[in-house]
């Protein structure tokens, strides 16, 4: 959607027939979609389970990218090796924010937009004051900087890697939600917080963990996309809008919907950008989403939840 289009770092290796172009578009779309999915997953979990519209999500993405840069330039850690510390750092930031800001706003969903936005400004500005606003660059892992052959097209290995990481993270998240005790508790709270609490579930603790996990995922997303573009304090702003559209389209409380809509939007914006230009693509996608909210506020792929 926003920035990911046109960045497709592959090239056609043979013929320029219509079919080839079509397949190439599909691959570009998948690449955009996997980045969208990476960024949107954390947002989806936080919004779907806690009802919080986290406008600081873009800043979590930015923090992840900066942590990657810091670990690489000051400690010589490669991107792949630093993924775990990045997750921990950003998740810790998320935990603190949930604990000291958002948990105070229990029954005021609209105010969480404002509060998270204020937090976002603070994070962005702190980074700007501490490391400056000049662009930073993160190096791609050397083992992934060549290209791979996909269906006869040479595609950047890193893009293929991102695709599989996105799928893997989705699988991990799904398992956490559906096959672990914490996930079960979270689903119980989503259905009815007070009944869950009366069964001895500590809702506050589960919420804090959920928010921290969502933030950690955003941090990973930031770290993973950082080699593809430059790192700057305001890089998150574009992502949060795109990610939000993915969540709205996919339907709240539906992880599978998030995946479907991420790839759908990826393909759609890839296709429109190919036919028209990036600006028109953005405008059409946004308009489509406005119309969608009007007629199906529960999202395209929403599953019915008992309330």
């Amino acid at each position, binding site marked *: 959607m926003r920035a990911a289009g046109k960045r497709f770092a592959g090239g056609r290796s043979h013929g320029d027939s219509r079919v080839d172009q079509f397949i190439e578009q599909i691959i570009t779309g998948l690449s955009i979609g996997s980045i969208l999915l990476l960024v949107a997953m954390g947002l989806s979990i936080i919004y779907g389970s806690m009802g919080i*519209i986290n406008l600081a999500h873009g800043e979590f993405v930015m923090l992840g990218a900066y942590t990657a840069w810091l670990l690489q330039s000051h400690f010589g850690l490669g991107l792949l090796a630093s993924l775990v510390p990045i997750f921990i750092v950003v998740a810790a930031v998320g935990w603190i924010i949930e604990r000291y*800001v958002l948990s*105070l*706003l229990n029954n*005021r*969903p*609209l*105010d969480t*937009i*404002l*509060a998270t*936005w*204020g*937090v*976002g*400004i*603070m994070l962005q*500005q*702190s980074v*700007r*004051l501490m490391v400056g606003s000049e662009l930073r660059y993160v190096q791609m892992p050397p083992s992934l900087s060549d290209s791979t052959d996909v269906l006869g097209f040479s595609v950047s290995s890193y893009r293929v890697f991102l695709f599989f990481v996105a799928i893997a993270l989705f699988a991990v998240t799904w398992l956490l939600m559906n096959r672990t005790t914490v996930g079960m508790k979270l689903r119980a709270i989503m259905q009815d917080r007070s009944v869950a609490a009366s069964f001895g579930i500590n809702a506050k603790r589960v919420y804090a963990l959920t928010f921290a996990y969502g933030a950690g995922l955003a941090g990973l997303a930031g770290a993973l996309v950082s080699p593809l573009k430059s790192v700057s304090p305001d890089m998150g*702003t574009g992502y949060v*809008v795109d990610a*939000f*559209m993915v969540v*709205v389209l996919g339907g709240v409380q539906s992880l599978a919907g998030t995946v479907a809509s991420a790839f759908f939007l990826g393909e759609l914006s890839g296709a429109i950008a190919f036919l028209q*230009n990036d*600006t*028109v693509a*953005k*405008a059409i996608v*946004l*308009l489509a*989403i*406005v119309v969608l*909210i*009007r*007629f199906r*506020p529960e999202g395209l792929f929403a599953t019915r939840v008992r309330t």
Partner: protein
Amino acid sequence: MTSKTSPHNGIPQLSAQIAPLLLVCALVFALPLILNNDFLLNKIARYLVLGILTVSLALSWGYGGILNLGQAMSFGIGSYAMAMALKLKTIPVHTGSGGLPDFMVWNNVAQLPWFWMPFKSLGFALVAGVLAPALVAAALGWFVFRSRVTGVYVSIITLATMVVLNLVIIDQQSYTGGFNGITDLAQLELFGVAFDAYGRATYYLVAGCVMLSLLVAFAFTHTKAGLVVQAIRDHESRVRYFGYDVAAYQIFVFALSAAIAGLAGMLYTIVMEFASPTFLGVQISLSVVVWCAVGGRQSLVGAFLGAVLVAGMQGALSESAAFLETWTLVMGALFVLVVLFLPKGLAGLAQGVWRAIAQRRQATQEVAGTVGQTREGSA
């Protein structure tokens, strides 16, 4: 019982509510008498215009419960309406045939596009600057509120719509001036008065509009329709069960708010001497929300002062880059604190303090009264 509160619920009487509003207006009008600096007056006029914009948001958000994250869209439409009219009045330097604006010549546009034509008339532009945002808002409101879209989704739709318009304006460079906006404008002339951006006339024009919009908004909140709108904010379905057409009221307050924002946009073009796509950007839209929240979303004067003070402070500190950066950080923190602990903003704080003082005075008076009575009785 003090004379300032009604006997039943402690809500200040009408005169007590309008007093701060008139006081603020008087201060705004009096300022040029003590401040003899045209450059500074222009700056202050700019903050006053942003104040009007914030009042318009307070109307839809604080009173109507509609958090419009695209308030700057109306602001931008107003601003462009004024800029288009003034652009057509510039003395041609690089212009083509028939006074074609310079950026169109550079973009090889041969003829004035149809939607520019009516702006040759200044009267049309003045009406359009207010009416066009209101009509756009009414159409969007019809689209949104008729289907009972509420809360967060309204905010997303308004934000997305604004971003689309912003993208279109930037993309259609040959018709809108694109990223650079519309610059190099003529001065507005009305009834023989020229409104130089740095002149007194412009300041008083802005001051007059401040008063007008505060009074219009105040009057609306005290009509029956205004009360119904506030009731919808507090409990939408209850009002619907009473038989009111909820969507109609929401559309109306949404459009009224857009009209005031359009007025602010027109003034902004006069004060800044250009129109730019950033005027309908995300940045300004969200800033307005902050000002409104800090000042007090349920107080028109509070929202106005919130904008003037915060924007003014930011402007004063922007002389030094390091200060500005720190200020933005402080701003974010201040905003979070206000949202957490002062949901009614500084105006709510002021009201609370005022009420506490009034109560204490009342209590001492009552004590004094009973003491007096017992003395009379014993005598």
